[in-house]
């Protein structure tokens, strides 16, 4: 493989965005979870909700911070590695990203301060208002980022000026491009799923150690309820999103399903090894006659295969094909886990079902994996375009050398390995300790570690009550 500047710039963006997406996909759901917990505490005054809030708010703050840091890097990359893209598309993309900062990021950052430092100072109701505002902010953030990305997937409402730059002619068409609603729904549900799986895993881990732990019993039930509802909904949203891909990006659909030939009555490929050079799938297991049905069209409808497009426009078929199958496979496992959990709760045996608890722990990271796999489908499937049909990736890169990009990529890899490993391990350590130490009151003499302080999860003498 020839590591030229374009490939390295793509690898760098893929590396940084794969790290970044982990955090917002977690914090979007977690902010709403915190709002629900605080709302339940306000209405019932049950300590279990307060304790869960205090436990998860710390993890939210750390994740939010790491999300900000990893997000800032990407906006600079647009300038350093993708200056041609920025030069051409900034009049359209720039305002969308600026709206995200002004309407979402500042909302989140401002009221996160109240969430963390002001519960006694502002009182319970104003504090709850702050939590709700932060939760709303995370959705507004997703709205603008998905809007910008959806416009790149299917650009509408713009014109190209004589100097090659783009200008918006209809902002509503830019913001609400045709694939946007389905993608926003798909991503928002993915965030809820990711969070509920993490909360479920953390709670199951505690219950494996102590099945009577009240906070974890409550959180497990809330998490199971959430992913039991959201996982099937995600299947519907994913199908709806797939329909927009069929309509607006038939080449991407052909890569996702490894449709090599244009034909009616496409088969449904389950697994196999797509071979881009030979234009066929090796060792394929397929079900004939249901491909069109799954795409929601009649058997007679002709679905475009890769042979309808110039070969130089084909994305990396194997990567798109397998990323999609990983995402869907994990989604099916989430539906199964949800059904299993609901059945156990209904039978009153969920806290004793060690097999289910271990499965829930094992499924904890799968939301993140599915989100990253989904983004690979979306982004690699769009190749060789950065703005579909308008600007090729090869024409988007900055006039910089492979050496410069490799040096910054190496620096990113080292820094990320240190910073995010430390942050990630700290979060895992907090999760492993569970909500119980939060209940500890500081010793009367003022020594020891206070509840909610960053060192509360450290292994020193937490007093359990």
């Amino acid at each position, binding site marked *: 493989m020839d590591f030229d500047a374009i490939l390295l710039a793509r690898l760098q963006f893929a590396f940084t965005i794969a790290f970044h997406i982990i955090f917002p996909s977690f914090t979007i759901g977690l902010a709403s979870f915190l709002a629900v917990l605080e709302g339940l505490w306000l209405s019932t005054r049950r300590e279990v909700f307060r304790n869960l809030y205090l436990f998860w708010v710390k993890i939210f703050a750390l994740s939010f911070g790491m999300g900000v840091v990893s997000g800032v890097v990407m906006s600079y990359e647009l300038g350093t590695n993708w200056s041609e893209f920025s030069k051409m598309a900034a009049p359209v993309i720039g305002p969308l990203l600026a709206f995200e900062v002004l309407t979402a990021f500042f909302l989140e950052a401002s*009221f996160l*301060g109240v969430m963390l430092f002001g519960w006694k100072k502002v*009182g319970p109701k104003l504090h709850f208002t702050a939590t709700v505002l932060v939760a709303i902010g995370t959705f507004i953030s997703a709205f603008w980022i998905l809007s910008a990305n959806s416009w790149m997937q299917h650009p509408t409402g713009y014109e190209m000026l004589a100097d090659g730059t783009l200008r918006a002619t209809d902002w509503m068409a830019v913001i609400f491009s045709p694939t946007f609603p389905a993608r926003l729904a798909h991503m928002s549900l993915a965030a809820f799923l990711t969070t509920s799986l993490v909360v479920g895993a953390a709670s199951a881990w505690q219950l494996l150690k102590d099945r009577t732990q009240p906070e974890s019993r409550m959180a497990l039930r809330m998490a199971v309820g959430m992913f039991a509802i959201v996982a099937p909904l995600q299947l519907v949203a994913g199908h709806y999103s797939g329909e927009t891909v069929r309509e607006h990006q038939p080449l991407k659909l052909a890569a996702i399903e490894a449709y090599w030939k244009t034909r009616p009555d496409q088969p449904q490929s389950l697994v196999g090894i797509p071979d881009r050079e030979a234009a066929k799938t090796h060792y394929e297991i397929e079900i004939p006659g249901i491909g069109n049905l799954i795409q929601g069209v009649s058997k007679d409808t002709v679905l475009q295969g890769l042979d309808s497009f110039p070969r130089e426009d084909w994305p990396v078929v194997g990567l798109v094909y397998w990323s999609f199958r990983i995402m869907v496979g994990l989604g099916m496992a989430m539906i199964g886990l949800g059904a299993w959990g609901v059945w156990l709760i209904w039978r009153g045996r969920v806290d004793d079902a060690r097999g289910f608890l271990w499965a829930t722990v094992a499924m904890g990271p799968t939301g993140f994996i599915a989100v990253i796999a989904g983004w690979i489908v979306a982004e690699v499937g769009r190749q060789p375009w950065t703005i579909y049909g308008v600007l090729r990736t090869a024409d988007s890169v900055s006039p910089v050398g492979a050496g410069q990009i490799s040096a910054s990529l190496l620096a990113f890899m080292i820094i990320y390995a240190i910073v995010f490993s430390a942050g990630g391990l700290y979060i895992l350590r907090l999760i492993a300790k569970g909500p119980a130490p939060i209940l500890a009151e500081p010793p009367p003499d003022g020594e020891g570690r206070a*509840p*909610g*302080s960053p060192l509360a999860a450290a292994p020193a003498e937490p007093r359990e009550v």
Partner: protein
Amino acid sequence: MPAIIEPPPGPDEAQRPLWKRLGWFLGIALASTLATAVVAYALKALLV
């Protein structure tokens, strides 16, 4: 060491007057916005 993440007031704790609570609410929000802006400008100054 005082708690960095402030816990809720206890059931017996008297609430401050509304104007004080609103003052804290706006004050903390503005201070947080200001802190974010300072970091943003510092980053910009570092790179430009």
